């Protein structure tokens, strides 16, 4: 219990207002947290699909590259790789999910036609083309995975923050406010009881004084008659 609160009616009213506001905020944050978790569940399903597809594509791309290396030689593959002129680029835009800004990644020049790749058609084999194509497909999957996994990270951060705020309100601020309110109410009741007791005492004292005065006056009038 915080005993540094002054037990006044004004403070009691202010605390009651704060309790009302905090309870409203707590409800809103709880709704936000639940909403974010629902959104996160959707993205998690999507992310797991993307992840497993990404791993399959990576295995396939590696197999094709190994094949090209085995048949055409490492030097030929590295030579073809060094000749490339078109480079994939990504641009990021943002999307808002319940107040959380998540990226939307758009890519350019990932998929290339044979003549866009830049290496000579005569000097290379179809196995190198197949490997290049598989890696281009892998890049597309990577971009998709990056988008989904970033969204997941952002959402998880926001869920954690919201959860912490809800817990702080529920287990720290609201119990403190309730205990302060109880303390002030008890103090005010105590003050009221003391006040009543004091008034009674004053009344008794006054009555006793009046009685004594009355008796003195009566005694005086009796002696005057005599």
């Amino acid at each position: 219990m915080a005993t540094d609160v002054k037990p006044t009616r004004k403070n009691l009213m202010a605390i009651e207002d704060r309790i009302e506001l905090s309870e409203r905020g707590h409800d809103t944050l709880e709704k936000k947290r639940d909403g974010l978790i629902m959104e996160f569940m959707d993205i998690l399903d999507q992310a797991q699909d993307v992840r497993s597809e990404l791993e399959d594509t990576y295995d396939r791309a590696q197999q094709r590259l190994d094949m090209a290396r085995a048949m055409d030689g490492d030097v030929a593959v590295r030579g073809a790789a060094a000749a490339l002129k078109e480079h994939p680029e990504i641009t990021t835009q943002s999307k808002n999910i319940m107040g959380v800004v998540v990226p939307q990644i758009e890519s350019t020049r990932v998929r290339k036609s044979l003549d866009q790749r830049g290496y000579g058609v005569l000097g290379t084999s179809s196995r190198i083309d197949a490997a290049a194509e598989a890696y281009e497909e892998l890049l597309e999957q990577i971009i998709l995975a990056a988008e989904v996994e970033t969204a997941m990270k952002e959402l998880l951060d926001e869920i954690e923050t919201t959860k912490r705020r809800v817990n702080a309100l529920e287990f720290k601020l609201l119990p403190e406010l309730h205990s302060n309110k109880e303390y002030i109410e008890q103090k005010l009741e105590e003050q009221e009881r003391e006040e009543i007791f004091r008034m009674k005492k004053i009344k008794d004292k006054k009555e006793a004084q009046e009685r004594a005065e009355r008796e003195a006056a009566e005694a005086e009038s009796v002696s005057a008659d005599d």
Partner: protein
Amino acid sequence: MSKEIAVVGSPDFTTGFRLAGVRKAVSVPEDEMSAELDETVKEQLESDDVGILVMHDDDLEYLSRGVREAVQQSVDPVLVTLGGGTDSGNLREQIKRAIGIDLMEEDEQQL
């Protein structure tokens, strides 16, 4: 602003990406990984024109704890790891911390 995809890993890992046109493919030989990988990854993290960083899941082992955590938590650039199966790194831990349940374990059991 357009950004690029960066790939960091062994020469075997990066060759395929070079073939797909990735310009920022940094090869670090296996025997120099523990000495050089930290610095190379830090450079890519600090680079403004890198939007996605691709690494092999096994190579994360060579990173020091601080750099590994920084790269896993980074959003710009975001790290995408390959070859580590469907379990995507520290995301599982983060899910456990934020939601309170290991959602990925449920999925593993379903599979």
